[in-house]
C-alpha cells in the first residue's frame, strides 16, 4: 500500500523553471511571499521543490527584501 501511495503523490517541480514569467526579484515581494512560512522563514527546497540554482537566487532576494522591509524577518510579536 505504501508503495502505491507514493506512486500517486504529486510531483514537485521548480516554479521558476516551469514559469519563465515569474521574475525572481526582491522588488516583487508577492512572488517571494509564496516561499516563506507564516513566521517568515525561508521554505527549504526539499519542501517547495525549487531547484538548487533558483533556491540560491531566491534566498538572496528574500534577504534583500527583508532589508527594505518588504518582507518580515519574523512574524509580528504580541
Amino acid at each position, binding site marked *: 500500500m505504501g508503495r502505491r501511495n507514493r*506512486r*500517486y503523490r*504529486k*510531483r514537485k517541480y521548480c*516554479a521558476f523553471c*516551469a*514559469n519563465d514569467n515569474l521574475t525572481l526579484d526582491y*522588488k*516583487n*515581494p*508577492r512572488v517571494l511571499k509564496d516561499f516563506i512560512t507564516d513566521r517568515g522563514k525561508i521554505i527549504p527546497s526539499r519542501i517547495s521543490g525549487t531547484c538548487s540554482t533558483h533556491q540560491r537566487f531566491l534566498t538572496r532576494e528574500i534577504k*534583500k527584501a*527583508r*532589508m*527594505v*522591509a*518588504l*518582507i*518580515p*524577518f*519574523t512574524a*509580528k510579536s504580541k
Partner: protein
Amino acid sequence: MPITKSYRDEIGKEREYEFIMILKPDCTSADIKIIVQRMHDLIERKNGKILKFEKWGKRKLAYEIKRNSEGIYLYLRILGLFDLIPEVEKLMRMIEKVIRYMTIKIDDTVDPDARSSEFDIETLDGNIEEADVDELEISEEDGEVVIKEVTEEETEEDSEEKSDSETKSDATETEEKPEDTKE
C-alpha cells in the same frame, strides 16, 4: 592622498547601482524634492548620473523601523564610479528623514555613454499621490491578484497532473497485468 582609481574596474567603464530609500511617512513633497535635489547635486559633483527615478509611494512596512510602521519608498538607478556610493550613503545618514537605505550593484562594466538618463531634476514632482506604483502597491486588492495568480498556476498544475496521471495509469495497467497472470 585620495584614491583616484579602483584597480578592479575596467578603464572607461562605470558601475550601475540600484538605490532604495525609505523616508518617514510624514514627509511632504517639498521634503522629497529637497532630498532628491541634494542627492542629485552630490552625484553630479562626483561625475555620476541618475538613470531612473521612481516613487513607489507610501507603503506599509513589514516591520517597524525607528517606530514608523509606514514609509515612503523612493527608487533610483545610479551610474557612477566606486567612490560615489560611500558619499551617497554618508549623505543618507545625515538626513534624518531617511529611515532606511540600501544600495545594490547591478553591473560593474557599464559604458557611461551608452546609457541615457530618463531623469530630469527640473521636472521632478515630489507628490506621492501621483506615484506610479501599479505592481508594488500593498493593499486589499493585492489579495485578489494573488488569488488570480494562484488559480492560473492551479490550472497549469491540473493540466500537468492530468497528463501525469494518464501516463501513470498506463504504467500501472501495464504493471498490474503481469501480476494477474502470475496469480
